[in-house]
Structures are given as C-alpha cells and as structure tokens.
C-alpha cells in the first residue's frame, strides 16, 4: 500500500498533579491515499490526543510528544519541522474538523471572511480573489444561498451549516490529509447523514485521506476503509472495516459491538455489557490494560501486556487469547 501518512511509535504524555501520564502509548498506523481510517474508542482512550498529536497541537506547557515518535506525511517527518514550517503545513496539507462547530469558529468574523483567510494565508491571494474562492467553497459544501450566507456570522447558522463551514475551511487548500474529530457527533441523524455523504463525495473528488475519530460504530461501518480500536492509550485491534466487523478478535471490540442496541437486536433482552469502566490513566492496571473488565482474562493477562499480533493478513489484535475470542 502506498501510504500517505505513517505514524510510528507515537507517544504523547502530559504532566498532571498525579505525575506524568501517557495518554497515547506507542501506537503505529498508516493511512493510504484517498482512504479513510477510523479511530474508535470510548472517552479517555486517547483518540483525540492522537488527532491533536498529528496536528502537533499538544500544548507545550504540560504536554509533549516523545522524541522516539515519528509522524511521516508524504515523506516529511512532521515532528522534525520547525514551528513555522509546521504552521505552514496546517491548513494547506493537513486540515482539521472539530466536534464543536460553534467553538471552532470565530464569532466576530463572517463565515465568508473566515474561509477567505485560508486562501489569503496559504495561497497568498488578494482580498477579492480570496473572497471569490471562499464563495466557491461554500457552493462546494452545498450551503443554500451561498452569496447571502457569506456575510453571515456563525451564530446565524444551524449546527449542520456550521459544520459545513468548517469542512469548507479545512478543505479549502485541498489538503492531502483531513483529520476529523467526532465531526458528526453533535448533529442530528438526518444532518449527520448529509455531512457524512458530503465528506465522502469531497474525498472522492479531491482524493483526500481522512483520519476520522468517532465512538459511534454505526458511523464507522458507514465510512471506514480501515479501523483502529483504542483502549487506555493503546491500540487493541486494527484491520480493515470488514475484518473488524466480521471477525472482532479482541474482547474489547467484541464487547463494544455487542453492547450497542442495534436495529436487529431483540427488544428488552438484556444487552451484553462490558463490566466496570475505563481505568484512569494515572493508575493503569498491570499487564493487559483491559484485564479487569475482560470475561476471558486469565492469570497471564495480569502479568504480561499482550503485543499486537496478526489474526490474519493485515488484521491485528493485542490479546493473549485472540484465537479463543475470534473463534474459528
């Protein structure tokens, strides 16, 4: 596979009152050109920190990405760039969309100005040319009445519209990589369906790679090519979307898939649950980080942390009992 993004041994830590905690602990993955990688997991598993690390937006005051980590985008190691070089990459070769469209937009500028700014900074366009280009982006993300919306402020738009504006900003320079952190979570289902379809269409026309972060397995099934499942800062399972859904091989993935009520589950029949809750990063269990909640756990799980091992082909799982979990 010709990978656009190659992440090697990414490790991100924060200094807190409880000492240094490692939110992302040595993860490896790659994203192919024009492909969508979904990162799934519950709150606190490190998925947002992974996204911020890719953008190098970890606050320097108390956070750091370890020196042994590598984030290679199209041949360039982003972690070796100077601050100015990195700033030039953001918005031009990497775009990002956030969960909360209201807080990600500046309330005192019109949405048109905010999109035009991207063109003025990265493409060095003049004001009128940038405005023209921004209007084109509004049309591309299918905002109704774009000429009128151009001069409106963020508070005048609905949540779905604001998310379209963010997508327009993120894709203005046709970046090679788009990072989307729960972009559809705050939206209603009908609007979510519109936004997902829009992202998919734009991805096809621009051949953009997408790293899509979500906790919603329905959304994963809808858009992903490849999937990473994270738990307590580590990858517990990775593979293609079909491998993950057809043959979940880590107890956590299996638990997640079986605990959501779906349109085919039997009403009111007790749902499978994952006992307990996500451990605190300051106080992680020994051995396999999932062992306290795992129905398959044995003695070895308390002592030895399992490594990611192949289940079949590109499908990897980090469990001492992968074979028993995945079945024949």
């Amino acid at each position: 596979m010709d990978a656009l993004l190659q992440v090697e041994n990414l490790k991100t830590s924060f200094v807190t009152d409880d000492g240094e905690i490692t939110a992302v602990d040595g993860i490896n993955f790659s994203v192919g050109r024009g492909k969508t990688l979904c990162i799934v997991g519950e709150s606190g598993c490190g998925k947002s920190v992974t996204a911020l690390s890719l953008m190098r937006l970890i606050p320097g005051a108390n956070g750091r990405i370890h020196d042994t980590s590598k984030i290679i985008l199209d041949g360039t190691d982003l972690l070796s760039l100077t601050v100015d070089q990195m700033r030039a990459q953001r918005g031009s070769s990497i775009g990002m969309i956030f969960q909360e469209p209201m807080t990600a937009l500046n309330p005192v500028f019109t949405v048109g100005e905010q999109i035009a700014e991207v063109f003025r900074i990265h493409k060095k366009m003049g004001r009128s040319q940038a405005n023209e280009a921004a209007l084109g982006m509004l049309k591309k993300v299918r905002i109704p009445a774009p000429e009128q919306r151009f001069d409106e402020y963020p508070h005048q738009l609905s949540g779905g519209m604001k998310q379209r504006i963010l997508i327009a900003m993120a894709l203005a320079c046709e970046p090679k990589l788009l990072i989307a952190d729960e972009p559809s979570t705050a939206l209603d289902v009908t609007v979510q369906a519109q936004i997902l379809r829009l992202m998919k269409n734009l991805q096809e026309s621009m051949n953009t790679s997408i790293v899509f972060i979500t906790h919603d397995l329905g959304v994963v099934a809808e858009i992903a090519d490849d999937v990473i499942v994270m738990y307590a800062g580590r990858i517990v399972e990775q593979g293609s979307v079909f491998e993950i859904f057809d043959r979940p091989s880590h107890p956590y993935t299996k638990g997640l898939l079986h605990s959501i009520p779906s349109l085919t589950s039997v009403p009111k029949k007790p749902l499978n649950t994952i006992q307990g809750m996500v451990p605190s990063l300051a106080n992680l269990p020994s051995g396999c980080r999932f062992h306290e909640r795992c129905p398959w756990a044995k003695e070895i799980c308390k002592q030895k942390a399992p490594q990611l091992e192949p289940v079949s082909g590109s499908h990897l799982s980090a469990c001492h009992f992968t074979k028993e979990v995945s079945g024949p």
Partner: protein
Amino acid sequence: MNQPLLTLDKVSKHFPITGGVMRRRIGEVQAVTDVSLQLAAGETLGIVGESGCGKSTLGRTICRLYEPSSGSITFDGMLFSSLNKEQTTSIHRNLQMIFQDPYASLNPRMPVLEILGEPFALHNIGTAKDRKDQVAELLKLVGMRPESMFRFPHEFSGGQRQRIGIARAIALKPKLVVCDEAVSALDVSIQSQVLNLLVELQKQLNLTYVFISHDLAVIRYIADRIAVMYLGNVVEIADRDSLYRNPMHPYSRALLSSLPVPDPRRRHGRETLEGDVPSPANPPSGCRFHTRCKFAKDICKSKTPALAPMSGTNQMVACHFAGTI
C-alpha cells in the same frame, strides 16, 4: 387499552418571545402543538425526533415542570389543571423524571445519603433513623454499594451518577417515570449497563416509562410504542415493530433511513433529507414537514394533516398521502 394512566388531549406549549423596552410579546416559539396521546400502565412510550422537535418540552410538560398553554393532561384520573393539595402530593410522588446530564442534575454539595434521603423526608416516609436503611436499599437496587451513600457526586463517574439519578427517581416507587435522554451522555459500554438497569427496574417495580431519545436504536430497544415528533407535532404513533418494519410518514422513513447501521455491507440505499429543521418560532404553513418532503403537493402547504388511524394497521399517521407513498 383499559383505563390509561396518562392522557394528553390536544396539549400545546408555546413560549413567548418578548422584545423592545416594554418586553412586549412579539411572537412565540411553538415548541409543542396539539399533541394527543394515551399511555397504559406498565407500558413504555418512546418519543423520538431531532433537536428542536419539542420532545423535551413535552416531557417536561408531562412532569408539570411546564404548564401547558392549552389542552389538558390527566394522570391517574386526576386532571392537572384542577388539583387539590392531596392530589398534588400524590402526583409529586408518582411522577418522576430522569435527566440527561448526570453532572448537572445532582446537587454537588449534598452527599448521596441526603440526595436520596430527601424524597423520603419530604413525604414523611419512615423516620430519620430509617433513612440510612432506605438509601442503602435503593443503592443496592440500582447496583451500587451501600457505602457510596457517604460520598459526594463528584466522586462518581458519569454512569454511576446516572444510577444515582435513577435511584432518586424511583425512591418513592412512582407510577410514571419520564426519562429525558437518560443514556445519551454515556459511553457505549456504560449505556448498555444503564439500559439493562432501566428494563430490570421496570419489571420489578411495574414502572411506566416515557422514554425520550434521539437515538432510534435505543428507542427500538426499550419502547413498546413510539411517537415520532417533528417541529412540535406528533407525525406518527405506532407500536415498535410496525414502525420499524413499515414507517408510514415520510419523515419517519427518512429518519430511520439516515441511521447508520453497524454493518459495513449495508452502506447503500440511504434516503437522506435535505436542509435543516425550520425554526419553531416561524413554522411552515400546512404540514410542517412540507418544506423537506419529497412527496409534498399543493394541499400540504395549505392544510395541516390530522393524526389519523390507518386502516388495517395500528399506526396513526399525520400525512395527506399516508398509505399511498
């Protein structure tokens, strides 16, 4: 259906919009308009719809947190608009609510013992001495350790707080519990724990639920009958299986179709809606859905369709062309 526990008759709730120096009324937000429905004891009614459709306002109106602008609500044979003191107390005991945000709905300055002891104290059930036993019993019922009663809300996780919220709601063995997005703020693995608990408690205590959610899969799991709301109106009411097998209102169909299914082989054939929900301060004329409906004809712009039973089914649908589309 024998004697319904709860009856809503043409209930509307409109909020005034005021403006100018004199705070004159310059318009109104029509949050809920002309909702009629009945609920039998032991049943779970799901209310589903997108943000701004009025489902939370309806839930709060049922709980008497809002007074309806028009229409009447009867609970357990008592008419809300003409209650004597004794009936008011009875309604306070028998009508409870579980809120969405487990962080905002518990008083941070009270230990769990006080939060859960308050309902008993207010209704003079048992003496102060019994309180600890009562609270311990409740905590066990919702799957928490009795020792938790000495701790404060901030010491618990979101899922545990939601259990405390549930314990508070069921403390006095109410007849009806309104759950307003009770599991929406929780992580997937915790959500299933809380859903299991709600189903289990319903069996044990013979509770009736009004379950409000935007999540169609959760609604399908827990509800017996479902009301679909759009912009303040109920557009369809049906039992669970009929609604999911054969949604008859174009909005119900679009809503069900836009739900992402956790199966990568079923990606195609989505029916997506265009546009956004119009503002409830200025709803479209006629059928409120006509601006987004692909079947809309002239009549939809001028005449509001009534919620009518469909022959041969037990579905009620508010659409001029129900059954033909």
